[in-house]
């Protein structure tokens, strides 16, 4: 099979193909629009006949995330995908995995809420993804793809980071990125890890006590507060390391920019078009696109605040990331937010109008 073949597919399909190709051991999910093509594509590809990857439609999202929890305990590369209401159902399991320090991948192809909301695209789960979502002091590593190519590329990246830090990672996409088709070069095939490789790479995993090693106990429960504080401090130290090492972002036309848009995912794509239009009208504006939403590119936003006269946070929500931008900017320049709600996607012209009237 030609690994480098350029093909045309939906973002959701790219997630499924990339999962098979990066040596994923198991996918557990439950269908929900606008991400059902992930499970559908996996079912079509039948990876259990080729790589041996398990693909299972669970009876609910609660069940899926707990299957992921169980698989992750054994050091396997396991994942699930869903959309906003389904991801809400998974929050308990995600918190447990963060507490038990387990690597796993959760894909959220966001739709508008609150509640059952709409099936149209939205970015209104930023808070849920980046600020915990479930209970307890924890973070996910959150990657925000802005193209079908990044949907494909971020699967392997998310697993790599999840295993490097023993922490669940999330791909936070939205209905637009999930449903649109673009050119994509799928990543090359990587075999699934052997049992021996898993034992070597994940000495913490419940792989069976071969050779009489000490039992590995995986739990998020510790009733002794002194011990629980130590665990929390260790987890927090890990988060500080992730913040120091794993921030990712893209800059676009910022060199001479007098104003900046900060936007992620599909909003960043719209922002690029708005920037083309604004620049044709003589407005010097550029884009900072956070690729990791957590860790957030705080330092980069802070630097930006020293350069531009104003920052517009373009999000397809009522204003969530704008809070992180304001914390980073520390009041140095005006920070405005613009977004549309309920599944409406802002169009490039209206963003230009907002830009003109904001500063």
């Amino acid at each position, binding site marked *: 099979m030609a690994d480098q073949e350029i093909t045309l597919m939906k973002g959701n399909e790219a997630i499924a193909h990339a999962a098979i190709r990066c040596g994923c051991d198991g996918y557990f999910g439950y269908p929900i629009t606008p991400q059902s093509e992930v499970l559908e594509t996996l079912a079509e590809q039948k990876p259990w006949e080729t790589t041996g990857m398990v693909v299972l439609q669970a009876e609910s999202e609660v069940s899926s995330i707990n299957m992921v929890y169980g698989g992750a305990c054994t050091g396997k590369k396991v994942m699930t995908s869903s959309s906003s209401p389904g991801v809400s159902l998974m929050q308990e399991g995600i918190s447990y995995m963060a507490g038990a320090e387990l690597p796993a991948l959760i894909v959220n192809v966001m739709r508008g809420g609150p509640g059952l909301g709409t099936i149209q695209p939205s970015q209104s789960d930023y808070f849920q993804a980046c600020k915990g979502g479930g209970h307890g002091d924890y973070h996910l590593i959150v990657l925000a793809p802005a193209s079908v190519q990044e949907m494909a590329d971020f699967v392997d990246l998310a697993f790599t980071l999840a295993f490097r830090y023993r922490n669940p990672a999330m791909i936070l996409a939205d209905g637009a990125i999930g449903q649109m088709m673009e050119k994509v070069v799928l990543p090359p095939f990587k075999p699934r890890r052997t049992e021996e490789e898993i034992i070597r790479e994940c000495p913490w995993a419940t792989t069976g006590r071969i050779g009489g090693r000490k039992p590995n106990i995986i739990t998020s429960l510790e009733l002794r507060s002194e011990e629980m504080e130590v665990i929390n401090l260790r987890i927090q130290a890990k988060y500080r390391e992730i913040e120091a090492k794993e921030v990712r972002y893209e800059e676009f036309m910022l060199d001479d920019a007098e104003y900046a848009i900060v936007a992620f995912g599909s909003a960043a794509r719209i922002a690029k*078009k708005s920037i083309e239009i604004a620049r044709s009208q003589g407005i010097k504006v550029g884009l900072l696109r956070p690729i990791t939403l957590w860790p957030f590119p705080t330092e980069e936003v802070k630097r930006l605040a020293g350069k531009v006269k104003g920052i517009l946070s373009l999000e397809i929500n009522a204003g969530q990331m704008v809070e992180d931008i304001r914390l980073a900017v520390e009041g140095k320049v005006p920070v405005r937010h613009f977004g549309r709600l309920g599944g409406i996607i802002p169009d490039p*012209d209206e963003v230009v109008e907002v830009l003109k009237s904001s500063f």
Partner: protein
Amino acid sequence: MTEEIIIAGFGGQGVLSMGKILAYAGLMEGKEVTWMPAYGPEQRGGTANVTVIVSDAPVSSPILSSYDTAIVLNQPSLEKFEPKVKPGGVIIYDGYGINEPPTRKDIDIYRIDAMDAAAEMNLIKTFNMIVLGGLLKIHPVVGIESVLAALRKTLPERHHHLIPKNEEAIRKGMEIIRKL
């Protein structure tokens, strides 16, 4: 060159697949392409539309405020997208699906009686390919050879015997489209 196209009509008319074949043909010519459907609780007879962008440069936004070309196959789509065609742009409409034709004077308006032609040819399922042929006649966004290659690539093998019929439909569309 960047061509920003909206294709809109009823669910079941082949709007999304026409867009997909156009995008695939662009990809086969090494162009950058984006296919962005308005997805929803799809049903036959409901509305369907797709934005297709074919460009020599990376595509920024898959969501657009205005379009170079609007292909509209029913009245609600015409009402929605006529105001969104850029000045100097193009509307192509199917005569069967539209009772009140477009009225703008600052754009080029083309009519294609694709539904009638598809019925005459007894090839009703190639309706969308007739429309695509019309587009390619007035705006060769991609070559017809690339479209045929895209069909070979996207259609399952068991349907490959229908490719000549599709080609016939595309050529018919090129023949019958007319400027108003």
